[in-house]
């Protein structure tokens, strides 16, 4: 018995070492960033006696005092809101239409939505320069120019999320029931279909927002003053502030995305886990 537990412990040695080493690799840069953002001790002078000295919030203060911080953040938030609105307005009707009217085309539409993977942001930026600089200068130089391209860039994530939301509900029955009670299409959408896929709409909006708030490539090449472009320039003239801003961004995105993962976990999975726990089954008995 004891030799068996010993052997099973031994067999976990490798995997546990892998996990610990990885945790270390993924946490270390966050620790070093926090220190550099909030402690004003130059690296050569840092040792055990100075490790608690000169911790300060000055770096963070510099971020909020910079005249370009709020304008760039506001600009990016505006772009994000517009991108979310167009994404939902375009994809929700399309996805519903495909499910209800032409289910045969589902594979094709899914394939089209992953096409943006093939044109990476830098190539898309080249394409915008190649086509729109010559043929539609007004769009190229408009402050909203980035929005349609951000919709395209987020498409693989957003469509999958909306599609999953539709698959999770019996949309045909919902629509038939609502229609046979006399509701028009508008009411059916507003009161029967959309409320039932609310969590997938929220997660699609979150994903879009993180894409827009993190996108550097196209904005930098097209020279638009978005938040990521500001972060990069800010680091150039205010290194400690730049590091503090990186830390704040990291914390915010982690909270947003972490919250999303919990929120978007399908209800079925949660229910199954609950049932398992109630029945005393542990799903971890694998090998």
């Amino acid at each position, binding site marked *: 018995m004891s030799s068996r537990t010993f052997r099973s412990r031994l067999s976990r040695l490798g995997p546990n070492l892998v996990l610990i080493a990885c945790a270390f690799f993924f946490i270390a840069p966050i620790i070093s960033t926090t220190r550099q953002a909030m402690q004003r001790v130059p690296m050569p002078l840092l040792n055990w006696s100075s490790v608690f000295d000169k911790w300060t919030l000055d770096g963070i203060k510099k971020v909020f005092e910079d005249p370009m911080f709020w304008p760039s953040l506001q600009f990016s938030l505006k772009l994000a809101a517009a991108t979310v609105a167009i994404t939902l307005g375009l994809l929700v009707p399309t996805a519903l239409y495909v499910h209800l009217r032409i289910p045969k085309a589902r594979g094709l539409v899914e394939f089209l939505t992953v096409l943006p993977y093939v*044109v990476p942001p830098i190539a898309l930026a080249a394409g915008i320069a190649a086509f729109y600089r010559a043929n539609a200068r007004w769009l190229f130089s408009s402050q909203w120019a980035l929005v349609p391209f951000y919709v395209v860039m987020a498409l693989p994530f957003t469509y999958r999320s909306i599609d999953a939301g539709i698959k999770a509900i019996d949309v045909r029955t919902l629509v038939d029931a609502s229609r046979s009670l006399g509701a028009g299409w508008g009411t059916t959408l507003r009161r029967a279909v959309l409320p039932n896929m609310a969590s997938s709409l929220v997660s699609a909006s979150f994903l879009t927002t993180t894409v827009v708030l993190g996108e550097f490539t196209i904005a930098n090449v097209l020279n638009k003053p978005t938040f990521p472009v500001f972060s990069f320039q800010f680091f150039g003239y205010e290194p400690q502030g730049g590091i503090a801003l990186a830390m704040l961004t990291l914390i915010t995105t982690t909270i947003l995305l972490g919250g999303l993962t919990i929120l978007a976990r399908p209800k079925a999975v949660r229910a199954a886990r609950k049932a398992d726990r109630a029945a005393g089954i542990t799903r971890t008995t694998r090998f």
Partner: protein
Amino acid sequence: MSDTALTRDGDRADGTVPAPRRRVRIPAAAGLLPFLSFLFLFLLLPAYGVVKKGFGGEGGGGFSPSTFFDVLSSESKAFRGSAKVSLVTAVLGVVIGTAVAYAAATAQRPKWLRSLVAAFSGVAANMGGVILAFLFFTLLGRQGLGTKLIDEGVGYQLYDTGWFDISGFWGWVTVYMYFQIPLMVLVTLPAIDGLKPAWREASSNLGGTTWTYWRRVGLPVLAPSMLGGFLLLFANAFSAYATVYALNNQANVVPVKISFGLVGDVGGKSSEPYALATGMIIVIAVAMGGYLLLRKRAERWQPT
């Protein structure tokens, strides 16, 4: 709202059936028109613009493949640089990512471990970019905390040996691993869930060792996911721009060369950045095509 609708139905039941409206038959695919035209305008037209200019002659007009191949051969160093960093980070990402996913999926003790690894991977796989480069400057830069701790701890001076620099090749590799490993974890976790404990029991009942199990059952089932993951990671690293640009804006890799060409090309006359972008799209298309095919194969054993 529903009240009026009911009355209307009731009216109809009374016999005042409205004359059937004449409807023009529209093909069902017409409903896809807004979506398709959006994709056409904002994805296909730009891609077409890139390819057209990439293959165009001097001044951007006409069709001369020779310009395309000239650019590719004169910038072959950038392509080799991109291929090298993509290859190394993809191989390392596949190996480490699969090991992490396996370790997390089979761990018994902290119950939340698996969800934590999955959730964190979801966040970190999307990291990349400028912020990530800053994080690693503070850790492994010349004045970084990690650089100092390695020196103090084991007496190894990272920057004196010459092979490592956060702005150099191994620096990029280290930083890329921060999003490549989590991406591989996301790709391969479902495949590892597909390995049924019963197969292992069957293998050992038939006299197989752990090694036999992995060679004859485990790896063959995981192989399509791992190969597909490799292609996905390769494409992912090949197209990364922001991270490497923030680490070293002189980096000799394709994305940085494209951005240089675009910023310098004010008159829109040069075809170089477009030829580079065309080459990049071709590489990514091949890798992603392979990935999608392999994913189909990989899903065979996965629980749905």
